[in-house]
């Protein structure tokens, strides 16, 4: 095994490419560069500083911060001492923060600003192991007097002073680092239960990065914008594991609200985001095109059609004729490139999406636009990526083939098993869960059901999420939900059938392909009694539905008000009808409700990476779901409003329940172009 570690890589880069820009952050409205040499210096200073605070090999340092250079400096400094980092999602609150700090037996936390410091101060006394809270942004903290607070640059300064008396000590520490030391701990997304802490070694991450770049080379001149949380494996995967092996520049956005502007300024060559980000981009294009004049709409409509034809041929491996190629060049010039430019995607060679399935229509949209969007499949436990589309071999329904160095096998019960050098070391202090995840032969049990289609992996859903309709058809709720979510007006969708039936079994079927895997006996007939069809709970997209309402002169006040408008229900009924048109009869949505609020990670309804927590929703909205099956037209739900002064008022508000029976779409109405919400 190679003994390469990230600190050793950084030392090499500081020597080889010392003057090249490693990190840059927009501050004061200007991109402020940090070279590899300076990066290494700051890591060394902080490492000495952390050592002075008592950080030792094997220990876990927590980081609670948005993406800033300090995040990575803290990570590399901890790793230089043989310690590792665990990231906490910056949007996390009390319980989640407490859980990770307690599980990791963390002593030193690196936080960003007042917002994060406040969260930590709130839980500080409950967690006995904590000793030091380092903050990087002192604004607003001038009057804090907690003895455990210290500013980031102060730790660096102390480290710098200490380094003078400890010449060569840190070099020894870095040299002693081994490939299978734990580098990063990532909290799993935790759609079920609390997040577990997955331990990833330097060797794991480096192997994954190497395999990925063997398939899709990334060079040192490439640009990368880091705007998704480092607590997420996907961001560690590209910014750290690939970034430090390729030596490219990582750019940090100024603020959450400026991501789109910053993305456009940098023009990244490579991008990895969960589907949500791509869906947002499509919604954005839709809204803007719908507000454009007729000429622009016509131009884009034509250009997109040409783009679609070319993309289709390329994906099927068919040659593109001379005429079509010329036409495509013109289409690119007048319609496609300007849109790519607006999105900041002109330089993009490849972008990846993963973590949850992305609707084929969104895929088709980006490929027609000339964006090489690829689906990947993996999970935290295998460093984020194990299976991916190859260039020119993109099939929407699959997630592609294993990346180099990865073995894939489908277990007898349909579960996807993976094996590679990137398979993690286990869950932090949780032997039991580790044994359940990795078997004796080193196979990672993913918990996902899937099958191989001509060497390409098709992922159906989490094994335990697969449910069955009363007539015995087994289906994946996610499949239907993604159909629904393709509508620009639908933000989230959760479908139910024999709902609240988690022991529905591991048998799975794919309604579209008709090809099934696995286990014929599934489903518990009793639990399904009285629930003879599929229902859906939808939340509307405030931006697109709001814009639609404005165009139609539908007045509304709040989100709840908008969601309960008759006209909005009619609009959404059309959308559900469109989704139904693509689904087999048995799994069509028969009734739906528009929820009066958006699903919120603060309410535990979705994870921080915006994956729906089905169990929480089935439980919390049980009365609504029951009403959907009772066949009534309305259900009263309690709604708690918290006023600014902290007082709470509970009101009961009526929610409409909509049946789909009356609505039959003609095929022409059922079709819709991807780029318009009209």
């Amino acid at each position, binding site marked *: 095994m190679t003994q390469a570690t990230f600190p050793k890589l950084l030392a090499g880069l500081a020597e080889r490419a010392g003057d090249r820009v490693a990190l840059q952050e927009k501050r004061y409205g200007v991109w402020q560069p940090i070279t590899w040499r300076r990066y290494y210096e700051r890591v060394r200073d902080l490492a000495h500083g952390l050592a002075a605070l008592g950080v030792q090999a094997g220990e876990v340092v927590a980081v609670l911060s948005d993406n800033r250079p300090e995040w990575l400096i803290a990570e590399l400094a901890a790793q230089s001492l043989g310690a590792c980092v665990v990231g906490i999602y910056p949007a996390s609150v009390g319980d989640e923060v407490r859980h990770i700090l307690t599980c990791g037996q963390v002593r030193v936390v690196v936080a960003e600003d007042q917002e994060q410091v406040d969260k930590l101060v709130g839980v500080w006394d409950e967690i006995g192991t904590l000793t030091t809270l380092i903050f990087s942004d002192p604004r607003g903290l*001038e*009057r804090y007097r907690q003895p455990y607070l210290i500013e980031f*640059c102060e730790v660096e300064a102390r480290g710098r002073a200490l380094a003078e008396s400890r010449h060569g000590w840190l070099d020894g520490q870095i040299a002693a680092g081994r490939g299978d030391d734990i580098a990063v701990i990532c909290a799993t997304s935790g759609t079920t239960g609390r997040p577990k802490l997955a331990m990833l070694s330097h060797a794991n991450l480096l192997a994954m990065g190497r395999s990925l770049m063997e398939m899709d080379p990334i060079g040192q001149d490439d640009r990368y914008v880091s705007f998704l949380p480092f607590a997420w494996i996907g961001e560690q995967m590209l910014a750290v594991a690939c970034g430090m092996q390729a030596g490219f520049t990582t750019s940090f956005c100024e603020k959450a609200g400026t991501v789109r502007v910053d993305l456009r300024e940098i023009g990244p060559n490579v991008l990895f985001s969960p589907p949500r980000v791509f869906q947002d981009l499509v919604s954005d294009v839709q809204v803007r095109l719908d507000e454009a004049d007729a000429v622009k709409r016509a131009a884009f409509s034509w250009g997109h059609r040409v783009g679609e034809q070319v993309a289709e041929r390329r994906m099927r491996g068919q040659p593109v004729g001379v005429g079509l190629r010329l036409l495509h060049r013109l289409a690119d010039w007048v319609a496609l490139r300007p849109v790519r430019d607006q999105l900041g995607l002109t330089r993009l060679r490849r972008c990846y999406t993963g973590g949850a399935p992305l609707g084929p229509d969104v895929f088709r949209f980006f490929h027609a636009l000339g964006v090489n969007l690829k689906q990947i499949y993996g999970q935290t436990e295998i460093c984020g990526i194990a299976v991916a589309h190859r260039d020119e071999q993109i099939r929407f329904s699959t997630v592609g083939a294993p990346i180099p160095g990865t073995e894939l096998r489908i277990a007898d019960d349909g579960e996807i098993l993976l094996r590679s050098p990137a398979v993690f070391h286990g869950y932090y202090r949780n032997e039991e869960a580790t044994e359940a995840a990795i078997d004796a032969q080193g196979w990672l049990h993913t918990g996902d059901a899937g099958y191989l289609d001509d060497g390409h992996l098709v992922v159906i859903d989490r094994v335990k999420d697969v449910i069955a309709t009363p007539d015995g058809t087994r289906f994946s709720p996610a499949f239907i939900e993604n159909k629904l979510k393709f509508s620009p007006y639908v933000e989230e969708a959760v479908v139910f059938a024999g709902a609240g039936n988690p022991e529905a079994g591991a048998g799975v079927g794919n309604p579209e392909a008709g090809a099934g895997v696995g286990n014929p006996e599934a489903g518990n007939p009793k639990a399904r009694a009285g629930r003879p069809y599929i229902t859906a709970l939808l939340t509307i997209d405030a931006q697109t539905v709001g814009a639609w309402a404005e165009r139609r002169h539908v007045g509304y006040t709040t989100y709840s008000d908008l969601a309960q408008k008759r006209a909005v229900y009619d609009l959404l009924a059309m959308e559900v009808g469109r989704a139904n048109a693509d689904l087999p009869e048995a799994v069509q949505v028969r009734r739906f409700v528009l929820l009066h609020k958006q699903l919120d990670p603060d309410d535990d309804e979705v994870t921080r990476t915006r994956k729906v927590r089905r169990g929480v929703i089935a439980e919390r909205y049980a009365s609504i779901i029951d009403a959907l099956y009772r066949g009534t037209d309305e259900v009263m739900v309690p709604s708690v409003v918290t006023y600014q002064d902290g007082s709470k008022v509970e009101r009961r508000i009526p929610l409409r329940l909509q049946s789909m029976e009356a609505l039959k779409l003609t095929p022409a109405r059922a079709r819709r172009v991807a780029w318009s919400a009209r």
Partner: protein
Amino acid sequence: MERTIREGSRAYQHNLNGSQLEIGSLQLEARNVSLAFGGVRALERVSLEVRQGDVHALIGPNGAGKTSLLNCISGLYKPQAGQIVLHGPAGAGTAESLRPERGSTRSRDLAHERPSQIARLGVARSFQNIELFRHMSVVDNLLLGRHVHMRHRLWPALWYLGSARRQEIAHRGLVEEVIDLLELQAVRAAPVATLSYGAQKRVELGRALCMQPALLLLDEPIAGMNAEEKEDMTRAILDLSQLAGMSVVLVEHDMAVVMDISDRITVLDFGRVIADGTPSEIGRHQAVIDAYLGHQAI
């Protein structure tokens, strides 16, 4: 408030508070100020005292004279009688001495100064109805707030030479800190006219802050804002007062906010001061309850 900032710290490099007075010392005194428009008596023998670092609210029913008093302080109206005395360090108001040594104070009567001179003395304000350059970008509007501090002459400025360039960069640095404080990054380059009402209000506060004012006058800073915008704005005002030690005179109708953030409240009714005190004193004051608050409000 002198601060030592360590190299590499993300702390703000500029202190937005332009006053050199000690916290708690008397900064502004209105003495028997009277203002009449023809037969309408807008202000009658109004007196009040503002102390350095306080958030001082002016409240009262519509037409009570709150905005008239702000206009007198900032020099837009000239009171017919009375004095408005701004205490500041000796020598303030000349080009070189905008940030002079602490120590001796010098007092100026604002009642007879021109608005431009009052601005130079460090009195900045925002308006009830937004008064921005609608077609200029946010940055340009904010840079305009730096105008009183710009020293370079036409020729170097035209060619962006030496001192002009250095000053420009320094001014922009301060403007960027105000942008950060008020979270205007995403709209930095957008024309002001395209912004939401709440954002425009923040730009207006920002322009006043860019002056590094000694005294900040805010006319209904949170009126018409949604709950979230109100919270952000209130937070910003409190930070300025508590952390930077800036004095803020505030006209506002949102009593919950006024009671929450003010150190002192002066109540006007028909041009007269009917009460003056801390929020808890005002909340119990019978005349104030009768004239303005009503019996349900508190």
